[in-house]
């Protein structure tokens, strides 16, 4: 809804279809191999142990666990929870490339970011056994890096090859604003994103679990909520921190954008994303201030990159997701310095260097590089961007002309009936 609202009227049907078809394509590929990657790849990095086929065996598409099975009633639910995040990662990329990418090209990118690259980073840095958690002390409780930095980095790689929309830059290189065709749709869309994000926060936790089930170092019998790494947090913390970081982001974005509605709403999202890496442990006021700092940085960085490199990020996704994710990871390294990254023995504690390396891996290695590489291949084959004539005419007529043709025909018939009276 957000993306459709942001597109121009002559492209909105195409924009809608481009995003909606991400859902089935990422779903089936996440069933075929995405979910297996998560369980088999936590240590699939040079020197870390390689692919664990035994751990992944239950999650191959031919496993008995991946179906109706009275010995395993829950795998499908966890699969779907992660799948939601896969859709999100792909949808973030989709927003930045509207009105000029070929759907066929975007859908390949959607499969790669949604069912391959983000789930590799989740295995490495968002899994109790991930090598980044063990070695780097990587901490990213609500996915500043593992969803947002990677998706923003991936989008940046694609738009660098794809190029800007026609008319985005004046002849002297000055960027032009291309206003959304429907600000109300955009508003409802982003509020739905906020709502979904809150649900995502809840889904990232184990709501309550006994220490002996965690099987780590925690002693005693007190049950606790945990983050994705099985380290203690509380549901109260995430509720406080989600709302305070949303508010800090909205307030800072309103000021820095001088009341621009689009950036204020996006700033709320960027605020949450910046604070998300540490929102399982932050104090609410820390969450609010981290969000505000992040928003000021990403807003200015967005316009600097746009002016300097002539990049057209149509919905600000690279900034709101990518830059905010990177900034959030690094800030968490300082604010949570020395805190345990895991309840298991021998894991590195959270630290700024580990978080910065983690940000580079998320944004650069698993995000930007694959996005840029695949876009380069598509561009060389001439299958990345739509023809200029189609871009000027609008994709709705060019690709979805059945609706436009039917509309013209029925209007003509009505006019003929009126004239005949």
């Amino acid at each position, binding site marked *: 809804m957000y993306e459709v609202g942001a597109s121009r009227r002559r492209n909105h049907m195409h924009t809608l279809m481009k995003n909606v078809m991400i859902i089935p394509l990422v779903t089936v590929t996440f069933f075929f191999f995405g979910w297996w990657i998560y369980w088999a790849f936590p240590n699939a990095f040079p020197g870390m142990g390689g692919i664990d086929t035994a751990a992944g065996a239950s999650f191959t598409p031919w496993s008995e666990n991946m179906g109706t099975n009275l010995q395993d009633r829950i795998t499908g639910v966890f699969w779907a929870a992660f799948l939601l995040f896969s859709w999100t990662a792909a949808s973030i990329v989709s927003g930045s490339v509207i009105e000029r990418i070929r759907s066929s090209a975007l859908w390949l990118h959607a499969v790669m970011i949604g069912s391959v690259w983000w789930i590799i980073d989740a295995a490495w840095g968002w899994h109790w056994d991930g090598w980044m958690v063990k070695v780097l002390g990587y901490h990213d409780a609500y996915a500043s890096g593992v969803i947002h930095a990677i998706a923003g980095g991936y989008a940046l790689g694609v738009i660098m090859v794809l190029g800007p929309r026609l008319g985005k830059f004046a002849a002297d290189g000055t960027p032009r604003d291309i206003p959304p065709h429907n600000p109300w749709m955009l508003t409802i869309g982003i509020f739905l994103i906020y709502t979904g994000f809150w649900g995502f926060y809840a889904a990232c936790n184990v709501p309550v679990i006994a220490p002996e089930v965690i099987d780590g170092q925690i002693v005693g019998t007190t049950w606790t909520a945990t983050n994705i790494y099985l380290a203690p947090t509380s549901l109260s913390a995430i509720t406080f921190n989600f709302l305070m970081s949303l508010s800090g982001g909205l307030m800072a974005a309103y000021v820095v954008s001088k009341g621009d509605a689009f950036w204020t709403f996006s700033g709320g999202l960027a605020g949450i994303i910046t604070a998300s890496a540490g929102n399982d442990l932050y104090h609410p006021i*820390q969450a609010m201030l981290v969000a505000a700092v992040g928003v000021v940085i990403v807003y200015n960085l967005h316009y600097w990159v746009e002016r300097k490199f002539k990049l057209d990020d149509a919905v600000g996704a690279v900034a709101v997701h990518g830059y905010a994710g990177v900034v959030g990871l690094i800030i968490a390294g300082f*604010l949570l310095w020395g805190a345990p990254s895991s309840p298991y023995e021998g894991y590195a504690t959270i630290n700024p260097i580990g978080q910065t390396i983690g940000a580079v891996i998320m944004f650069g290695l698993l995000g930007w590089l694959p996005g840029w590489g695949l876009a380069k291949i598509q561009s060389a084959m001439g299958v990345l961007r739509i023809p200029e004539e189609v871009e000027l005419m609008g994709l709705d007529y060019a690709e979805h002309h059945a609706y436009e043709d039917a509309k013209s025909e029925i209007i003509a018939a009505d006019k003929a009936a009126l004239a005949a009276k």
Partner: protein
Amino acid sequence: MSTIGYDSWAVDLAEVGPVYPFQGSEVIMVVLGVIFWIMWHRIQYVRESAHLEEARKMGDKDKVAKVMERY
């Protein structure tokens, strides 16, 4: 050294209270938070005043009448 007071979870959670960073600095954090909030109102008030003053000078009678037609 750990900003949250724990560098390992080898503890009995029954004996653990706050785990946010910089415990003991709550009052300072509240002061910073309140400054952020008050500053927001101050910046917004000043900017809105400037905008309204500018807008007040923009509208001649014909223009205002035309705008009223928009409802």
